[in-house]
């Protein structure tokens, strides 16, 4: 009967060690769907912000549709394991008492119309905020690269 060599056990152990990485990762891995969601919502958000030169009440439906899309993306992010940092970034972006997208919508609702210079500058901030979210996502480790 052929006996198993110690080197075989060692190789098997090494393979097991390599596969155990997924369990000890400190941050979520790259997710193509999450990346597409953040870049797509950025375009929608900036287009919606242009409407703030007009009355909020006439654009309320479009705003509500956008907010629903964003809530869906947020729920997806919240349910990814080890994704707390990205979720905290979304919290800052969407916070209605803050000064990025959530705060912008609240101010528009309250004041009905916003001035164009302010909209232009706030769009730059919201654009940067989305870039910070997608920038972090794009640097996350692609699960297909772990075993290479």
């Amino acid at each position, binding site marked *: 009967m052929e006996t198993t*060599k*110690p*080197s075989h056990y*060692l*190789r098997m152990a*090494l393979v097991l*060690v*390599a596969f155990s*990485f997924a369990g*000890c*990762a*400190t*941050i979520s891995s790259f997710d193509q769907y999450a990346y597409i969601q953040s870049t797509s919502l950025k375009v929608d958000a900036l287009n919606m912000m242009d409407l703030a030169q007009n009355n909020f009440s006439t654009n309320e439906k479009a705003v509500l549709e956008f907010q629903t899309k964003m809530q869906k993306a947020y729920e997806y992010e919240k349910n990814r394991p080890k994704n707390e*940092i*990205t979720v*905290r*970034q979304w919290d*800052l*972006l969407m*916070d209605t008492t*803050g*000064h*990025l997208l959530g*705060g912008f919508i609240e*101010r528009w609702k309250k004041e009905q119309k916003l*001035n164009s*210079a*302010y909209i232009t*500058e*706030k769009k*730059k*901030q919201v654009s*940067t*905020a989305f870039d*910070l*979210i997608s*920038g*972090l996502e794009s*640097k*996350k*480790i692609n699960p297909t690269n*772990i075993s290479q």
Partner: protein
Amino acid sequence: MADFDFQSILSDIKNSVTALALSTVKEYANEAKADALQFVENSKANLQTWIVELSQGQLTQADFEDLVMGLKDLMQMNALQQVGFSLIEADQFKISLLNTVIKTVVSLI
């Protein structure tokens, strides 16, 4: 049965891992510093634009204050991104470490 020189294997792994750790930390520290400085520079330029627009009446006092507070929120988002990058670096280091250990041991078997 093959004899393994475990002392030699451990010594090789220790050398490889030390070199890997030093290069990873140095590279990340330089990148993080450059990113943070770039963010501050961009913020300074925006602030100057808003002061001009405020003085010309294109922005109201409330607009200006909201934009400055927005900058504060962006700085927090940027800080979170830096924390995220450091965790990604840590995970990449773990992968490299595992690969180094595997390659070192396999080459000696």
